[in-house]
C-alpha cells in the first residue's frame, strides 16, 4: 500500500509547484537583478542586453527544433518582421504622440511575428522534415530579398531607425540609459522564458513532442499532426517577434541583416550548440555564443573559423549539445560518484586545452604569415612577442600542440574507464539497496 500512495503523491506533485521546479526560476531572476551591480561597465551592459535578446530568440527557435522537431532555415524572418513593425510603431508614437508605454512594445512585435507565422505556417507546417526546411529557406530568402525592394516597410539599404525615448514615461522612467533598458529586457526575458516553459507543459506542448517523435501514432490517437505543428509554429513566431521588439528597443535600428540567412543560420547554430533536448539548452547556447562572439572577436580575426569548427565537432561528438553534456553527469551525481571523475577530468582536459590553444596559435601564426602586410613580421600571442619568420615559434607551437594532444589521448583511457565505472552501481551498493 505504501508503494501506491507514494506513486499517488508523486503524480500529484508532478504538475504542481515544488521547490525543485520553482527554485531555478527564482535563482535566475535574482541573478538577472544582481548582474548589473557586478558588471557595471557600459560594454558589459550591451553584451548582457544582446545575450537576453538572443536567449529569447533561441528559446523561441527551440520550440520548433527541439520540441516540435521542425528544422527552420528562415526563423530570422519572424524576429526581423516583429522588430521592423516595432520600429514603425516607435516612430508613429514619436510623430503622432500616441500614448504607448515602451515596455508594451514587444507585445506588438510578438503579435506581428505571430501574424506572419500564421500566414506562412498555414501552408508550411503540413509536413515536417525536408519540405518544411526547404519552404522555410525559400521564405527566408524571399523576405530577405524583398527587404531591398519594398523600401516603404524595410527602409531599403539603410534600414529603419527610431528613438525609444518618446514613449509614455513609465513611473518616471523614459529609458534614456542602458541600465533601464537592461531591466526592461531582463523582465521580458523572464516573462517570455516562463511562458515558453509553461507552453511546453500544456497539452499542446506535450503533443508537439509526440508529433515530433512519431506523427503517425499521434494521429492514431486522434490529434492532427498538422494543427499541432501549426500551433507550435505560431507560438514560436510570437516569441521570435518579442525578441525582435526587444532588439528594436535596444539598438533602435533594424536592417536587412536582421532578416537574412546568416541570422537564421546563427540561431540554429546557437540552439544546437546549447542543446535541443532540454529546455535550458538554448539559454546556455546563447550565453556561450554571445560571449564567444564578443570576447573572441576582439582577440582574433579567425573567431568564425573556431566557432564553425566547434559547431561541426559538437554535431559529430555531442549531438545533445552543451546541455546534453551537463545532463550526462546526472547519473554519476545520483550515484554519488561525481567526485571520482574530478582527477581524470583534470588530467585529460588540461592537456587537451593546451593542445587546442596550441592548434589555435598555429592557425594564428599561419594566418599572420600569409595575410599580414608585406614586411610585417612581428606578432604576439598570449602576451609573448616574436617574429613570424624565425623558426623558433613554429617549433615551439607544434611541440606544445603535439605534447598536449598526446597527453590528453593517453589520459583519456583512464577517463573513459572511470566514466564507465561512475555510471554503474557498484555491486556492494546494489546489495545494500535490496
Amino acid at each position: 500500500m505504501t508503494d501506491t500512495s507514494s506513486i499517488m503523491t508523486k503524480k500529484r506533485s508532478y504538475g504542481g509547484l515544488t521547490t525543485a521546479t520553482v527554485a531555478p526560476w527564482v535563482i535566475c531572476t535574482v541573478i538577472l537583478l544582481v548582474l548589473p551591480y557586478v558588471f557595471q561597465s557600459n560594454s558589459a551592459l550591451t553584451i548582457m542586453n544582446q545575450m537576453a535578446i538572443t536567449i529569447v530568440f533561441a528559446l523561441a527557435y527551440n520550440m520548433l527544433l527541439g520540441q516540435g522537431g521542425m528544422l527552420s532555415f528562415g526563423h530570422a524572418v519572424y524576429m526581423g518582421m516583429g522588430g521592423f513593425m516595432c520600429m514603425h510603431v516607435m516612430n508613429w508614437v514619436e510623430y503622432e504622440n500616441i500614448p504607448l508605454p515602451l515596455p508594451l512594445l514587444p507585445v506588438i512585435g510578438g503579435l506581428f511575428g505571430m501574424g506572419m507565422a500564421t500566414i506562412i505556417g498555414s501552408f508550411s507546417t503540413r509536413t515536417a522534415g525536408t519540405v518544411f526546411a526547404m519552404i522555410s529557406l525559400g521564405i527566408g530568402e524571399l523576405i530577405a530579398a524583398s527587404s531591398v525592394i519594398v523600401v516603404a516597410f524595410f527602409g531599403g539599404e539603410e534600414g529603419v531607425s527610431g528613438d525609444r525615448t518618446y514613449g509614455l514615461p513609465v513611473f518616471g522612467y523614459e529609458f534614456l540609459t542602458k541600465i533601464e533598458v537592461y531591466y526592461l529586457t531582463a523582465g521580458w526575458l523572464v516573462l517570455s522564458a516562463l511562458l515558453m516553459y509553461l507552453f511546453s507543459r500544456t497539452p499542446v506542448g506535450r503533443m508537439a513532442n509526440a508529433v515530433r517523435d512519431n506523427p503517425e501514432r499521434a494521429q492514431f490517437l486522434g490529434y492532427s499532426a498538422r494543427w499541432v505543428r501549426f500551433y507550435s509554429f505560431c507560438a514560436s513566431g510570437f516569441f521570435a517577434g518579442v525578441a525582435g521588439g526587444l532588439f528594436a528597443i535596444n539598438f533602435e535600428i533594424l536592417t536587412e541583416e536582421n532578416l537574412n540567412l546568416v541570422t537564421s543560420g546563427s540561431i540554429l547554430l546557437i540552439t544546437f550548440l546549447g542543446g535541443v533536448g532540454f529546455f535550458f539548452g538554448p539559454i546556455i547556447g546563447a550565453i556561450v555564443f554571445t560571449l564567444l562572439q564578443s570576447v573572441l572577436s576582439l582577440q582574433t580575426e579567425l573567431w568564425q573559423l573556431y566557432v564553425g569548427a566547434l559547431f561541426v565537432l559538437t554535431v559529430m561528438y555531442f549531438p545533445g549539445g552543451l546541455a546534453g553534456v551537463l545532463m550526462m553527469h546526472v547519473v554519476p551525481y545520483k550515484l554519488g560518484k561525481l567526485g571520482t571523475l574530478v582527477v581524470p577530468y583534470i588530467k585529460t582536459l588540461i592537456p587537451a586545452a593546451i593542445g587546442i590553444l596550441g592548434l589555435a596559435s598555429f592557425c594564428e601564426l599561419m594566418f599572420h604569415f600569409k595575410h599580414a602586410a608585406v614586411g610585417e613580421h612581428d606578432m604576439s600571442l598570449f602576451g609573448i612577442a616574436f617574429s613570424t619568420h624565425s623558426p623558433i615559434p613554429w617549433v615551439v607551437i607544434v611541440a606544445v600542440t603535439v605534447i598536449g594532444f598526446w597527453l590528453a589521448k593517453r589520459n583519456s583511457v583512464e577517463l573513459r574507464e572511470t566514466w564507465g565505472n561512475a555510471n554503474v552501481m557498484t555491486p556492494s551498493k546494489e546489495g545494500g539497496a535490496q
Partner: protein
Amino acid sequence: MELVLVILIDGLVYGLLLFMLSSGLTLIFSMMGVLNFAHASFYMLGAYFAYQISRYMGFWPGLILAPIIVGIAGAAIERFGLRKVHQYGHVPELIFTFGLALLIEEIVQFFWGKNQVPYDAPEVLQFALFSIGTNEIQAYKVFMIAISVLIFLCLLYVLTKTRVGMIIQAALSYPRTVEALGHNVPFIFMGVFGVGTALAGLAGVIAGPQLGTFPGMAFLLGSIVFVTIVIGGLGSLWGALVASLLIGWMTTFAASYNVAMADILMAVGFEMPEEMSEHALRDIWTLTLPQIGPILPYLLMVVILVFRPYGLFGKRDA
C-alpha cells in the same frame, strides 16, 4: 530576336552549370535521404583548388586534378564525418552539412583571403567564337556548355548502361538486398558521394573564371541549387535537368528584359498615383522585372512545394 538567342545561350550556360551541381546533389539525396548543404562549398573548393593548380601548371591540369581532389575530400568527409552523424538521425545530418558549409567558407578565407582571386579562363579560349548580330559569344561559354553536356551524357551512360550504374541504382532503392547479394553498400555510398562532390568541383573549375572565384560564391549559388532539386523533385535526375534549365533561362530572361510593374498595372486599368513619394504602395508601382529576377526561383519553389510537395518529376514525398 538576336537578343533572345543570346539570352538563350547565356541561360543555357547557367542552367547547365546548375545541373552539374544539382545532379550530384540529387544523387546524394536519393542515396542518403538528406540534403547536402555543403554541396556548393565543394563547388567553391573546386574553383580554389583549380586556381592554385593553375598558378603552377596552367588551366588544363587543374581541370583534371581539382575535381579529383575535391572528390577524395568529399569521400573522406562522408566516411569520417557524415557516417558518424548518420546514426543520430536526419536533422543532425542536415545540421552537420550546414556547419560544414560554414566551416569550408571560413577555411577558404583562411587560406586565400576574403577577396576575389585572379583565376582566369585559359588564353586559348579567350576569343569570340562567333557573333549573333552585334553580340559576341565567347569561346569559353561554348566550352562550358560542351563540358556540361559531356558530363551529362557520361552520367546517363554510366547510370543506365553499365553494371556499376545498375548496382548503384539498385543500392539506392534496396540497399539491404544489394548488401545481401555481396556488394559493399557503404563503399558504394561513399563512392557516389565522392563522385557527386567531384562533379560539383568540376562545375567550380569551369565556373570560377566566368562567375568569379571568391569566398561568397558557394553562398551565392548554394541555395539556388537546393531550389533547383526541390523544384525538379528530390532524387530525380531528369527533374534536376529540367529545373536547372528552367531556372537558368528564367533568371537570365528576367535580368535582361526591363518590364516595369507600372506598365502592367496601367494596362490592367489602374491609375498611376500623382504623388508617388508618399503613396503607401509606391514600391509596387516602381517594381521592375530585373529587380525581382533573383527571387523568382524561390517564389517558384514555394508555389511548387505548396501545390505539389514532391516537385515536378519527384515520385516520393520528401
